[in-house]
């Protein structure tokens, strides 16, 4: 087997690997926001972005991935807890906005929401 693939299986993964996964989820989330016309799809994109960020916090705070003075330690987990909670709050507000938008326009297509166009 190739050394790189073998190493992935036999050596502990590091912060880098977590960050790459986080980056992937982040990118997917951004693209989701950029390509979905459904307002709920955009919300899901936001959830994914936040989740990708969370993954980074957890990774930077984990003692299994990186054990040095620069590690975030418990702060990483605390911050990600806040992120999760605030994400829930944000989802509630966003849903309310979406609902309002739907009540006003009869549609949840965000492309219809371009009254601020220049």
């Amino acid at each position, binding site marked *: 087997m190739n050394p790189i*693939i073998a190493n992935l299986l036999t050596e502990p993964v590091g912060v880098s690997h977590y960050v790459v996964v986080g980056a992937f989820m982040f990118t997917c989330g951004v693209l989701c926001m950029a*390509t*979905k016309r459904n307002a709920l799809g*955009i919300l899901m994109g936001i959830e994914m972005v936040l989740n990708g960020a969370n993954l980074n916090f957890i990774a930077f705070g984990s003692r299994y991935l990186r054990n040095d003075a620069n590690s975030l330690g418990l702060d990483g987990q605390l911050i990600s807890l806040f992120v999760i909670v605030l994400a829930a709050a944000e989802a509630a507000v966003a849903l309310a906005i979406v609902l309002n938008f739907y009540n006003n326009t009869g549609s949840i297509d*965000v492309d219809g929401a371009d009254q601020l166009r220049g």
Partner: protein
Amino acid sequence: MDPSWLPKLLALAWLTPLASFVLILFFGKHMGSHGKGAGLLATTAIVFSAVCSFTALFGVWLPNHPLQDASHHSAQHEEVDSHAGVSVPIRLVAAEAEGYGHAGHATGEHGEHANNAAPKYITADWYELGVFGKLKLTIGYYIDALTVAMFCMVSLIASCVHIYALGYMHDELHDFTDPEVTLTSGENLKRPGRYYRFFQYLSLFCFSMFGIVIAGNIAMVFVFWELVGICSYFLIGFYIERKSASTAANKAFIVNRVGDFGMLIGLMALWSSLGTFSFGDMTNEQGEVTEQGMFSLLRTEENDYHLQPTAGMVFEGDRFPECNCATGGSGDTASAGEASGSGELHAKPPTKNHAGQWLLLVAGVGIFCGCVGKSAQFPLLTWLPDAMEGPTPVSALVHSATMVAAGVYLVGRFFPVLSPEALLVIAYTGCITLFVAATIAITATDIKRVLAYSTISQLGYMMLALGLGGWIAGMFHLITHAFFKSLLFMCSGSVIHGVHTNDMTEMGGLRKKMPITAYTMLVGCLAIIGAGVPLMGIGFSGYYSKDAIIEQAFSFGVSNPRHWILQWAPVAGAFITAFYMFRLWYMTFAGKPRNQERYDHAHESPRVMTAPLVLLAVFALGVGWAFPGTNLKVTNLLEQARPVGTLVTSHGELLPALVIPNEHDAHNFLVPAGLWAFGTAASGLLLATMIYLWDFGLRPEELKRTFKPLHSWLWNKWYFDEIYEWIFIKPTKMFSGWISWIDRNIFDSIIHSSAAICKGGSKVVDAIVDRTLVDGTVNTLARGTWDTGLWLRKIQTGSLRQYVMFIAAGTILLFVAISFVQNI
């Protein structure tokens, strides 16, 4: 067998097609009805050539030169390097060429030095055409591993194409009605079939191609170079009655002349300074060198095989006594180059004479000009797509696998003569070509034109590889590409044969009608995009060669950050290649039929056509592999022919910062290059699949509409034809027009103009002072403000999703900017 058989066997392989040509020339019309026997004769001849070539390879060359595993050596090499800490130029052991010399002296000497030594070759003259003072024109040979490999490749593909053409050209066996030529009477042209003539040209072409490969000196190369050109002319213009075909033939011929002009200049520069045309050293029976060839003159053993101008190349040497022009003057240009590269340029006395380097540059670039023409590189790339007017077997043989590859071959053969600066020119040409051609291929809908642009792009890859110092990479890609591209062309020919159209927009779903063609073509497509398992080293043939090129590009890019574009262009090219090749495959074979009538009448081609497809598919799949259990592998064979210049890290003389890296260093970039190549190819494939196969929401028509300007830019082939029309043709016509106009109207115009000047003068004052200056300033200001406002307004789209895109793009830009700042 004894090595003295080598020239004999290859000469036999070379001359058999010539015999076939002569026979068909005189008796072709009488060989069966419309010359049916001519086809068989030509095919037999080329198969015989192939047999000879392979006998030469397996019977003579390999027994005398057992293959070494190159990768094993490179590993050792890396170890040595890492121990030394820096990349030291390896002190090369003595070339064995002298001891080798004429046939019969094969000592079988090889072993651990094989990698570092000058390649082993046999060279001699067969026949002296004439001696004019110092100028000696001869017919000779220069045979090394590359020659043998090329012989095998060319003869094998040519055999397949011949067999294929037996079936493909059967329309020509009887009176032929050309549906594309309409006479003034409104009827279609009816003419007797020209089956025999086709094979006559093919035989002549094979002869000429073999001639280029076997040639022992550059003058002989030039002769066969032109012969190949004329064959190409004949074959493109095979349907001479068609306007498009005859125009294309002319275009190909004329464009090639432009390149050959440069080649002649290069030839003269070389000859006038070196006094010889021969590649290698001539030896007598005792093995003493009687006459040095170009390679050993320019890269002497004493100088670690670094390129150094010879005494004859430096003008007015007396005026600059300090210059290190003499052969003994081991003030060593290479080390001087390094020193100046490290910023001590001003410390040196300003008497350094670069004339020799300039001359080498002129010679190298001049020779390369010929290759630009033949290999359809930028800016002379317009003729190759038009050459698709010829019958498909011709496209497969001449315009993809062999003739256009001759340019690459010549650059490879000439490698020791090329200075780093010339290599840089080559690399940039290849880089531009590969990108331009690949982008054009995205929008083309003619199946053969897509392949033609793909060919140009792949040739660009090879040139790029050579220009970056990746000799093995380029030559290896030349060979793998020959196999899969001829396969692709023959598959497209099979499709055209079955559907009777070139237009991909009328195809679709043909997979079910012609399965053999479809799946062999799939093999070809996978091979050209370099499909393989990353890091595992298992893949189609293109996987190995393309990865090698990208590795070399990475290696080069790391040594020369300034030329980063040369590093990333092949990566981008891999993405585009994967996209357009699978676009082609999906449009042709997958999905639903777009033209039901054509689909209903489509049929699989006869066995005489599909059999070569299968054979070539096997080669396209496996030509990069080692024969199981042995070292028998194309790269190992090429390794034996590696020219001396590629295993040293060389520095530019004129551009001191330029570094052409040692090719073995490329292995350090195995992992990133492999991953990048795989990633880009996979994403290109994915994109093509999403657009053309899955009903995913990406529709080609919609894309075409959205990117209208881009699409028409590519559809019109970057306006190359139009530009040439405007730059070269129109001015010529206009210039002559002007002359006549002046001639006729000179007097009148003088009188009229004097009146007009008065009138115009007052108008000008009015226009300039009053309207333009006074009004204009005010209006321009107002207009500018207004326009800026309007333009800025566009950014404010109000669309949430676009804002997200702006943010993402802004992030990326910020990142890039920061990384730049940090680098400074």
